[in-house]
């Protein structure tokens, strides 16, 4: 998976595939900020989502530190959401943020960092962690689906979590 720095460089060079990757990488993040942070629903959330990526596309060249792509996108998303909320109330754009927005974005950042670190783990670790923690599957079901003795699943999960922690701390 390319780094954000590489992704930005390729986008600025006009690589359409890189742009698709960037949108794919950040679409859930942007949508989560719109819907969970600012409670935008339905068409409002979708319009805000489109606005964010239009702005990202138009302003990517102004990003000074490509490694800071995620906080930059978060900032753009917050501005777009505030503008949309103000437009819905027919008010001037405001800087008044909803309560708890900082902790919501902190949690989203943490969740996305975990997701990115998870994607760097071997396939079998991704599979076993996803099945246990995200899909709530039992040890027996995981063992049967993956052809692994169910008595070893708990230890596998522990080892995979240790690797995930190493990635996050790296």
């Amino acid at each position, binding site marked *: 998976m390319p780094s954000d720095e590489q992704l930005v460089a390729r986008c600025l060079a006009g690589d359409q595939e890189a742009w698709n990757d960037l949108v794919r990488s950040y679409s859930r993040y942007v949508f989560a900020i719109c819907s969970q942070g600012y409670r935008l629903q339905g068409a409002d959330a979708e319009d805000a989502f489109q606005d964010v990526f239009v702005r990202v596309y138009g302003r990517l060249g102004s990003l000074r530190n490509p490694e800071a792509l995620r906080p930059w996108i978060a900032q753009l998303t917050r501005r777009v959401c505030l503008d949309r909320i103000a437009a819905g109330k027919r008010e001037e754009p405001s800087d008044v943020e909803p309560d708890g927005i900082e902790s919501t974005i902190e949690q989203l950042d943490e969740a996305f960092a975990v997701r990115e670190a998870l994607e760097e783990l071997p396939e079998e670790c991704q599979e076993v962690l996803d099945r246990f923690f995200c899909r709530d599957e039992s*040890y027996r079901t995981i063992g049967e689906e993956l052809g692994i003795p169910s008595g070893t699943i708990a230890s596998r999960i*522990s080892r995979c979590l240790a690797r995930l922690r190493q990635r996050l701390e790296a």
Partner: protein
Amino acid sequence: MSNQHDATRGAGYAAGRTAAAGARLVADVARASQDSWPDATGVVAQANALSDRLEVLAEADADVFAAALVALATPSAELERHMQRAAALPLEIAEAAADVAALALVVAERCDGLVRADAAGAAALAAGASAAAAHLVRANLTVKPDDPRLVNALRAADDARYSASRALDAGV
């Protein structure tokens, strides 16, 4: 919380809460063994996830059980649907409780000796909860003896009993 609400909480709710308590005990024992056992951190995470899952299942079971009681008192076309749901949740509780017992066994075999009896106790609690939940699947009016839900619930209870037996042997 009203008395009426409490009265609708049956054995499924109690089984879920008991297994959740067992999972929290497993987490505590693993946490106490972190200095001597590198995998303990991962076990704590799994035990916490199982505890959270079981608390949610217990609450959901109480709601479904209450709805089933109402449906039984005033039979309608909805009765079958309520009874089907009333069998699904105890099955999930039986399976999650079996996982708590399996995790407790792992802990009992590797934890600090001072807290090993607690890990064994957690396995026994989880096995009891799994057996109780499996019995609720068997007692459900819509479940026949060869129903896959019953087969799976009884298998989970057997797994839990086996794990608890081994954990108790390790815990002496």
